[in-house]
């Protein structure tokens, strides 16, 4: 197996040997295992085209082998990733939300996330009034904190309500850190508002 193989049309299947772990670094769609002779090899984990890319970090001179399949498996929310969710239920202590997108990838089936009272903001965590921060049906951008169960937090100013609507069905416009206004009726509602990106 050549170390510098720029033939990107090469299609591999799971279990194909891509090279030695000492020469190539494992990227997406690959994994490292020791074979019968005790040599560490990089194997393909997906069916797709193999590409050898430039080294990821300056300290690691090995080329990065990646296998890109045509059908990527559904995304799974992981720690520290930004997710887009729709709030389902709000109680005084917590709110539950359906995670619809992970990063930029939309999910086929939802995952459930929980927003706890003290994860809503960084200051005065006990005085958070959940009902003044979220309502059912709001679209929220959050960060995944932990996994059992999926907990979401909003400590970053860019996170929190991005879209919400009031009875009229119109998308509300943020007017301050804690308030959103409906452009049609002029009604102001309290929410935890995300920083508007220009």
């Amino acid at each position: 197996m050549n170390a510098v193989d720029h033939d990107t049309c090469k299609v591999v299947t799971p279990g194909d040997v891509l090279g030695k772990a000492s020469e190539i670094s494992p990227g997406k769609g690959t994994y490292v295992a020791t074979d019968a002779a005790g040599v560490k090899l990089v194997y393909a984990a997906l069916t797709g085209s193999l590409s050898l890319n430039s080294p990821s970090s300056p300290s690691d001179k090995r080329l990065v082998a990646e296998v890109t399949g045509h059908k990527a498996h559904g995304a799974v929310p992981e720690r520290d990733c930004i997710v887009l969710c729709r709030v389902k239920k709000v109680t005084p202590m917590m709110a539950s939300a359906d995670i619809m997108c992970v990063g930029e990838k939309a999910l086929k089936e939802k995952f459930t996330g929980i927003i706890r009272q003290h994860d809503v903001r960084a200051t005065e965590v006990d005085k958070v009034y959940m009902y003044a921060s979220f309502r059912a049906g709001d679209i929220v951008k959050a960060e995944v904190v932990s996994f059992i169960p999926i907990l979401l937090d909003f400590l970053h100013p860019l996170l929190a309500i991005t879209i919400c609507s009031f009875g009229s069905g119109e998308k509300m416009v943020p007017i301050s850190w804690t308030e959103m206004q409906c452009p049609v009726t002029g009604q102001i509602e309290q929410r935890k508002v995300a920083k508007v990106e220009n």
Partner: protein
Amino acid sequence: MEFVSPEGLRLDGRRPLEMRQLRAEIGSISKADGSAVFEMGNTKVIAAVYGPREVENKSQQISDKALVRCEYTMANFSTGDRVRKPKGDRRSTEISMVIRQTMESCILLEKFPQSQIDIFVQVLQADGGTRSACINAATLALADAGIPMRDLVTSCSAGYLNSTPLLDLNYVEDSAGGPDVTVGLLPKMDKVTLLQPDVALPEIMQMDSKLPIDIFENVMQLAIEGCKAVAIYIREILLENTKQLEYRRGK
């Protein structure tokens, strides 16, 4: 009863070391994340894979890896007599567990903690070797779904009748009462993940002798060779499918 004629032909005209014709199709079920139809001779099996997705039963959730669920069913019309209980009976439950354990050994579960991968396999036409066909179909469906695996898992059965090792038994040969074994193999790793001998019926065990160990090794080796042949075919199918997708994308 004669299963191998003096000329060396089996009941369906095959040679003892000859496998049945293989046929596979990927992506038959568009709603599923991955799907495949696999045929070994007259045995036809369809597999659908959903996942990774949220675990339905939170109590079964595993914190550091994915949960694999497998369900094996036989369609009512799959055998000559109408199948009375397609799922939930002992044989189906046992085969579901066997397929689950085999696939668990090859999927890289650590990449999806706290999620679930569902594998559904249904036998559309049963003519012996349904277990093997199901494992092969599940492998193709998982590869179609883009779920990372260590290697493809392939499976084949082999038996011993009329003092001859036979590869890929059909229903008549399977129910003849001779010993047979189903082997699941990771072909590139050369590792056996499933080794399931079929216990002969008690009445026949009295007449038929127990299988000497060297003959058993022979039969097992034959099944392993069969698995490798299936693996070559499955890889061809996957490569062909990838090329088709690339043409359609206009590359």
